[in-house]
């Protein structure tokens, strides 16, 4: 085990898979010579050549479409979309093709592709380099969506995703790339898709989160407990689809209180789905309203710092929400 940055854990996961399995290939804009605009794929083209690390033309629909075709013909493609904000041109290939290939062929074909893409804000990325539009994909049957923030989880889920026989959208928080550090096991480490992780154990209130807002949630929980005592559980979803509703329900049935926190816009975000599951299946256990804290329903983080700051929810906001819910 070694301590690694989130970005290093992901790079290692990629390099390991490329090294061990000739079917693994990478395709995306600037992933080759440049090693990706965030440097996730740095050095891989030198080692594995231009047919396994493909600097694609500037065309996201093509990137995903080619990955689907290559997967049909025996490869395990890992496509990179440079920013999640630029995935919409590929929506048809993702929703109509990757998500439905297995189903429409009655299981004859499959689509073992991974779409890696940086998401999230807080880095002055403005409207088109900050978005968290994962809910668009979590609604689509046939897709899987993961959003690990812990480096070990990221490496383990990446390996699982590469070998998963279904299409997986792999979300990498760009603010976390070089700010989150953790112990990462060396070789062959996998984390199952669809399983949440209890990031902090507790018994009075459950926070359900993922991504950078998980980090803020942990900090808020610490601060709250330090001041008020009590015990707060924090769940890191890691996988958004399939969602680990068992883990969520188990925790909420124990604590009676649920606070859902995410960076995506509130309306129609995955938080709504989680709240609905809790409200329906843990109704009798609830000691307070299922509460959501999420981004305001504004297109995305504006560029100017005061506006970006106004958009962001931080540990103080989360702490205030804990206080309100705990006091209910």
């Amino acid at each position, binding site marked *: 085990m070694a301590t690694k940055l989130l970005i290093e854990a992901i790079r290692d996961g990629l390099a390991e898979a490329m090294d061990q399995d000739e079917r693994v290939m990478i395709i995306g804009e600037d992933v080759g010579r440049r090693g990706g605009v965030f440097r996730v794929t740095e050095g891989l083209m030198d080692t594995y050549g231009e047919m396994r690390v493909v600097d694609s033309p500037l065309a996201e629909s093509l990137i995903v*479409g080619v990955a689907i075709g290559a997967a049909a013909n025996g490869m395990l493609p890992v496509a990179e979309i440079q920013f999640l904000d630029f995935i919409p041109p590929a929506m048809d290939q993702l929703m109509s093709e990757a998500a439905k290939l297995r189903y429409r062929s009655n299981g004859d074909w499959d689509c073992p592709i991974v779409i890696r893409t940086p998401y999230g804000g807080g880095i002055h990325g403005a409207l088109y380099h900050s978005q968290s539009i994962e809910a668009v994909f979590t609604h689509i049957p046939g897709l899987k969506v993961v959003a690990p923030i812990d480096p070990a989880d990221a490496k383990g889920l990446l390996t699982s995703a590469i070998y998963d026989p279904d299409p997986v959208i792999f979300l990498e928080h760009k603010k976390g790339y070089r700010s989150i550090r953790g112990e990462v096991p060396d070789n062959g480490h996998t984390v199952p898709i669809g399983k949440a992780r209890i990031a902090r154990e507790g018994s009075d209130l459950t926070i359900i989160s993922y991504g950078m807002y998980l980090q803020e949630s942990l900090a808020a929980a610490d601060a709250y407990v330090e001041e008020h005592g009590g015990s707060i559980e924090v769940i890191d979803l890691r996988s958004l689809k399939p969602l680990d509703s068992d883990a969520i329900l188990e925790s909420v049935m124990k604590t009676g209180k649920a606070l859902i926190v995410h960076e995506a816009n509130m309306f129609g975000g995955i938080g709504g789905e989680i709240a609905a599951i809790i409200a329906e299946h843990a109704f009798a256990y609830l000691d307070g309203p299922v509460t959501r804290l999420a981004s305001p329903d504004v297109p995305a983080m504006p560029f100017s710092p005061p506006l970006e700051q106004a958009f962001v929810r931080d540990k103080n906001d989360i702490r205030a929400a804990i206080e309100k819910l705990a006091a209910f």
Partner: protein
Amino acid sequence: MATVSGRPDVDVDLTHEQLREMYELMLLARALDERMWLLNRAGQAPFAVSGQGHEGAQAGAGFALDPSKDWLVPYYRDLTLALRFGTSPRDVMLHMLARAADPNSGGRQMPGHYSSKAHRILSGSSPIATQIPHATGIAFAAKARGEDTVVITGFGDGATSEGDFHEAMNFASIYKLGVIFLCENNGYAISVPQKKQMAVERVADYAKGYDMPGVTVDGLDAVEVYAVAKEAVDRARRGEGPTLIEAIVRRLTPHSSDDDDRTYRSAEELEDMHSSGPLRVTRNRLMEIGALSDDWEQETKERIKTLVNDATEHAEQSPLPDPGTLADHVYAKDGSRM
């Protein structure tokens, strides 16, 4: 080997027997297609989409490929190509009647969505042009492994307006991939005529933006199409890259069983269109060079009729899907591709 005379003469490396096989494929496709149309009109199937008028283009191109190793990425009119790649008449009818045993989709897709992993026919969706990048990706994988596999993908004139067509052509040409882009130009996208679909006279002109050979060919004449496709396939197999083939065909039916083309095609145009078709043109070719006899044709048509009847009856007697299977195959049941 045969030099096939006609307008224009073409040299093709097919024996008379192979030419007959090619024509037989067209006859079979037409017979199945007509039966499907009939089943729809008789209320036995809620939907039909036809390839009538496209058989020459597909048979010609299909015979230039090697179904034992090449790939097909079809669109909904590519019945002839699917048959060439190994789809059987029973497979077609099980699909048409949406039976559980439909090997194309288990009754999940509308008719016309041919698929078979065993035969390397990639399952397609209904959205137009999305399959074109898939064909390109398949060819990329082959090239990455050093294989000389060729991939053919079919699509209509309307499909050329979608970005996916252009993105795929570009990529295929940059990497000199073994793809045959077969545009079956029937002059219409549902009701929209070619002059409202594109600025160019010839779909083949799109090849110029991709430094790729682009050829326009009479799609009613399977032999001419074969000649053009053979050259393209040889080129692809040598690793010299893709070709765009525009085959001029006729859509002899309305767009689908839900359409009424009399609302946008004049009576004269409809009549004129039906004055000839790929079966007649290809038959004339083969007759001229003596590859066909009336006897052979008679016998063959009988054999095909039997096949089509058998396929229809087989499908009719085959059970519908079990409603309990609705949620199967959304995701893999088990495991990993490790």
